[in-house]
């Protein structure tokens, strides 16, 4: 239960290969965020940086407001589910799930002995002495007028150097001046923040406060291992949630893939973690089991109630699971948004093609403007842009230009005969999916188009006719279109968020 904040996170391998460029993301408490993208896009690397399994080359990762860059994985209080389950083969299912609990130490209150009380009193006295000295010191440093004077002097010097620098042409002298400027900057920082003494005073005060509280309550906090009873309780509870109670005594190798994945999830959820990380947890399962486990993860999420980061290359998983989706490509974030946003308003061509199956059809054509109306002309047909899309284009003052037009396969309709707004195509392949056909068609100039059409609207005769070589006319509504700039591949419908430089 915590927020996760990634700012300017970067991963560079062996000085050359950049796996993640300038990754910025704020994940809210209890949010389910999915990183999705093709393999090699840096999604797993980012996740592993959050977990602490990879060094962070640049930038900061904060969990619960605390910078964790230099913390070991064990000190970050995260859990992780791995693609290959990573169960300990030598331990039973029970011991596997209990493994993190056995390593964990809990804060327990223990009454103080008399000896300890005396000791604490002595250290409080010592701290008080220190605090007095430090306060005195800071007061001296805080002779405000003097500081102001110093700052003014340094500023003046700085201005002079900057002036000199602008006038100077000789590179050697320039470098010297730059060095001087840097030194001045440092001196200035020192004058602004008389940090050290203040920081030490703060730690000393905090420590005294903690010790005083300990004395007052007569108890001290101690970190102890969890008792076996507690472990047993927690493990059985987790096993019950996941339906693996019957297998607790087995070794992982005696389990099926789905059961192993459940154990892995159990091991991750049993300790109270701040963030639960999942690295393609369903990739090793067969299709049927994957659908089932996906539904279970959705249910589980309600029960566990923590922050999730989920990595997958499967857009269906991303769409169904995520509160928010982060689409990535080549180490860059392409779009962040809810599944609906990402599906309806892809910010660029990559996201448009990646999200949705089969992928969006795209073709080059021209966007023209006649009065207030917008038209597109794919393959000679003339189709008017209508509804919200047209309003958005007008609002954004989009001019007539060459564009890449995108239409999802399910938004293309089949019409019976030629019309000005219809495209003539020839059927190549008809994939029967049960409730729908996936038609692979070729336009007259050889551009492939995929159409998803529900079978329920077609008569048996029509279905039988849909074979290789059949002539088919296609059209699509003015609502269903997506427009991308032909040069930049950015969407013309949404404002582009500021992209980081490569």
């Amino acid at each position, binding site marked *: 239960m915590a927020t996760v904040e990634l700012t300017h996170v970067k991963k560079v391998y062996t000085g050359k290969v950049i796996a993640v460029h300038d990754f910025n993301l704020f994940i809210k408490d209890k949010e389910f965020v999915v990183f999705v993208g093709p393999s090699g896009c840096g999604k797993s690397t980012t996740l592993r940086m959050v977990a602490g399994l990879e060094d962070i080359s640049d930038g900061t990762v904060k969990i619960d407001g605390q910078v964790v860059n230099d913390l070991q994985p064990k000190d970050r209080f995260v859990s992780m589910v791995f693609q290959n389950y*990573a169960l300990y083969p030598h331990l039973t299912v029970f011991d596997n799930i209990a493994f993190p609990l056995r390593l964990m130490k809990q804060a327990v209150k223990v009454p103080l002995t008399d000896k300890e009380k005396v000791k604490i009193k002595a250290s409080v006295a010592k701290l008080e002495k220190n605090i007095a000295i430090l306060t005195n010191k800071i007061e001296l440093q805080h002779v405000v007028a003097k500081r102001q004077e110093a700052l003014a002097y340094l500023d003046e010097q700085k201005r002079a150097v900057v002036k000199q620098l602008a006038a100077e042409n000789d590179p050697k002298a320039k470098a010297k001046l730059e060095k001087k400027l840097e030194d001045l900057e440092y001196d200035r920082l020192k004058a602004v923040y008389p940090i050290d003494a203040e920081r030490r005073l703060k730690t000393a005060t905090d420590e005294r406060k903690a010790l005083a509280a300990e004395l007052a309550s007569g108890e001290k906090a101690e970190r102890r291992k969890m008792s076996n009873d507690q472990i047993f309780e927690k493990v059985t509870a987790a096993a019950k949630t996941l339906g693996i109670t019957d297998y607790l005594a087995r070794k992982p190798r005696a389990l099926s893939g789905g059961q192993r994945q459940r154990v892995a999830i159990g091991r991750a959820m049993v300790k109270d973690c701040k963030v639960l990380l999942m690295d393609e947890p369903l990739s090793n399962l067969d299709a049927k089991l994957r659908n089932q486990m996906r539904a279970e993860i959705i249910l589980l999420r309600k029960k566990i109630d923590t922050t999730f980061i989920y990595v997958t290359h499967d857009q269906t998983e991303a769409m169904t699971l995520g509160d928010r989706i982060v689409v990535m490509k080549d180490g860059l974030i392409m779009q962040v948004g809810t599944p609906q946003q990402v599906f309806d308003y892809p910010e660029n061509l990559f996201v448009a093609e990646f999200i949705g199956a089969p992928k969006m059809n795209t073709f080059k054509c021209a966007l023209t403007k006649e009065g207030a109306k917008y038209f597109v002309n794919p393959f000679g047909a003339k189709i008017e842009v209508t509804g919200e899309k047209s309003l958005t284009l007008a609002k954004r003052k989009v001019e007539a230009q060459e564009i890449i037009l995108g239409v999802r396969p399910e938004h293309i309709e089949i019409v019976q005969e030629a019309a000005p707004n219809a495209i003539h195509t020839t059927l190549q392949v008809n994939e029967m999916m049960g409730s729908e056909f996936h038609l692979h068609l070729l336009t007259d100039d050889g551009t492939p188009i995929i159409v998803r059409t529900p079978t329920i609207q077609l008569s048996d005769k029509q279905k039988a006719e849909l074979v290789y070589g059949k002539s088919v006319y296609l059209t699509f509504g003015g609502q269903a279109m997506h427009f991308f700039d032909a040069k930049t591949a950015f969407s013309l419908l949404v404002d582009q968020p500021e992209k980081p430089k490569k």
Partner: protein
Amino acid sequence: MNPEKEAVVVAETQADPIVLPPRRHVGMRTKNRIGNTLIYILLILMSIVWLFPFVCIILQSFRIESTMMTGYIIPKEWGFDNYVNLFTTTNFPRWLLNTLIISLATAVLQSVMILCMSYTLSRLRFNGRTFLMRFMLVLGMFPGMLTMIILYRVLADMNMTQQNSIPGLILVYVASSGMGYYISKGFFDTIPKSLDEAARVDGATRAQVLFKVILPLSKPIVIYTILTAFMGPWGDFVFAAYVAFNNREGMNVAVGLQSMINTPSGINANYTMFCAGGVVVAIPITLLFLFLQKYYVEGVTGGAVKG
């Protein structure tokens, strides 16, 4: 169709007329039986050659009619006198204790070092790692005997020779044992890295990963490592002899036993006792191997999967 005719038919139908000689049909079972018999005869002969010295020593150790070397093998009078004398009249118990201390200490220290070294080289990535591995491989190619003279001087200066040879020998055996990382590193490399990662996320330190996850999964290699570490000092003669330098308190069993028969009079007086000593020394190692040979073989072959 009987087999002889069949052979002829096969030959005739072929385009290129190779005339196969009519073959005597020998059944699969008979063939196997003949083959096995030959192999077993060979194996039995080899066993006799190998076991003969051992049997001789065991038989000699029970001979009580005389103590010198004789021209026959089967004793005329049997008894345990040699064993009793070995433990009561000589320094043998002391030597056995010396050897046991040295071997146990070496086994523990060397195993810990080798396993930690292997884990480090298998899992951690640090600057100079590959250089270190190659460097140690090359260093390992020089025979250890090269260092004997200088090591003796060093040990002598530290007062770790002669009667104080136990710490000296442990030091020598344990030093540089990290270089024996090769086989166990190969074994560790076959354990998926994601297990380490899972354990680290679960809250384990690197050391806990090694002791709670990796080592339990590497039982064969751990046993192999301990066994080899134990056996080296147990049977060592050259270095132990050099460090003990004829001091009867500082000898290990091998050196001690040899010192009983290194003079002509010694041979005559102690030969059967010497054989009894040999048997006593062999017993622990034999027992260890009997119980652990399964792991030992797994260790050797398992480590070879990925070198």
